[in-house]
């Protein structure tokens, strides 16, 4: 099985970090994977996106034209990518930052006010992780297993307290209904 995940939002929202977490999770699961960031001006606050492909087979193109799973953290990204999602695919929306609903009827849409949840936790910069928690819960292709191992690899060893915070954020998203 191959799952193509596209994560998009503003630079600074941790789009690439979310992708990295999924990539390391796949590595821990001994799956094939690719992680491809958009690069360049997004480092200074433009739009950022990250394509993660997870597969049981060697990954073909790391470029995702039609994602199975779209995770969006701002309106321009939903506007841009909604139509590209595969029929039967999933769209995860940060509903604090995106007011409109998904218009397509052939995909499953999930809404979570992840920015608000993160702010309430006192960790506004972890909205991406809260959103990812929701994905781990509702996307059958991406389970919660190995997320702790993955977190240990991506959270800087200099900031062990961030590991706990990230785990809390995942749980917050995971338990949101």
């Amino acid at each position, binding site marked *: 099985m191959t799952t193509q995940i596209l994560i998009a939002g503003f630079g600074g929202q941790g789009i690439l970090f979310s992708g*990295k977490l999924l*990539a*390391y999770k796949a*590595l821990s699961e001994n799956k*094939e*994977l*690719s*992680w*491809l*960031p958009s*690069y*360049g001006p997004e480092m200074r606050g433009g739009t950022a996106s990250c394509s993660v492909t997870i597969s049981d087979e060697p*990954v*073909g*193109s*790391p*470029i995702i*034209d039609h994602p199975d799973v779209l995770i969006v953290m701002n309106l321009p990204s939903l506007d841009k990518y909604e139509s590209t999602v595969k029929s039967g695919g999933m769209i995860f929306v940060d509903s604090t930052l995106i007011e409109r609903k998904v218009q397509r009827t052939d995909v499953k849409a999930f809404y979570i006010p992840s920015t608000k949840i993160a702010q309430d936790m006192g960790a506004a910069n972890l909205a991406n992780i809260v959103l990812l928690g929701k994905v781990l819960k509702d996307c059958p292709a991406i389970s919660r297993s190995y997320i702790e191992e993955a977190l240990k*690899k991506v959270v800087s060893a200099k900031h062990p307290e961030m590991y706990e915070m990230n785990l809390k954020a995942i749980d917050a998203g995971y338990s949101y209904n």
Partner: protein
Amino acid sequence: MSEKVLMKGNEAIAEAALRSGCRHYFGYPITPQTELTAYMAKRLPKMEGGVFLQAESEISAINMVYGVAGTGKRVMTSSSSPGISLKQEGISYIAGSDLPAVIVNVQRGGPGLGGIQPSQSDYFQATKGGGHGDYHLIVLAPSSVQEMADLTSLAFDLADKYRCPAMLLADGTMGQMMEPVVLPEPKTGTVEKPWAVTGTQMKREHNIINSLYLSPEVLEKTNFERYKRYETIQEKEVRYESYLMDDADYCIVAFGIAARVAKNAITALRNQGLKVGLIRPITLWPFPSKAIREAADKVKGFVSVELSMGQMIEDVRLAEECRRPVLLCNRAGGMIPNVDMVISSINALKNQVEGGR
């Protein structure tokens, strides 16, 4: 065997270079290869005999490479398209002085300042020489992060073996993407370099690293000798991947990121019942001409998938000797052909071939 780690392509090149015994790196920042420079800046100063230097320009960087290469040690520089243009003078001198060195080009769109998104539009520059004079580089085109590491290691070995510069021709996608990679085991070069300048120690005649021959007879002789070596390289060092070619009616030729897109397209096309295969050059010079010539005996046509206005397609046509139609499927300026485009190109080729009956 070491374990799988997750790395960016740029970092995989850097780490593989260190494991290949490269202890000298000279660079200048440019997107999208800067991670490579940064990796070397972090690692080399902590290694015994390690030298990292951010040069004042790409021109200086390649000439520092020339200096170290002259001493016989493994040395590398990296840049992206505009910076590689600046290095061409030095690369020509390195080739003309028969020195081994490894140059990495993580290509971006051009010409001029161009853009920073991935491209393959330096194909001509890399494979036909690039600087002035008669010479070639060995050009290796990785198509995965694993190959970024493996081909870096190979580049050092081939450069030493044939006393010529080797280039890793990647693109922004390859440089920026992360994939699991098994890094090569640490090694050092084993090739003797009696020609190196290391100081005579008063034990031998002086060595001279030089590309100047004012006598045209002598210069011609050096050119012929160098091209003899190139013939050996063409005989022995061609590398390519043949993917689903056994029963193929149509052949895609693509390298690097384009080959990855092509493989996805081939899966889709085969699901539709079209027998399509891929020849993926791993060495762009020497080009796998024989494989393509032999494929032309069996397939009805070719599609060259490229991130350029069509450069490799010329070598494909030369190789298949104009016996079959060769279509171009391309995007340029930092855009990448997608799977649908490749499928359309194969369908167009099929229509052309069958319409001609």
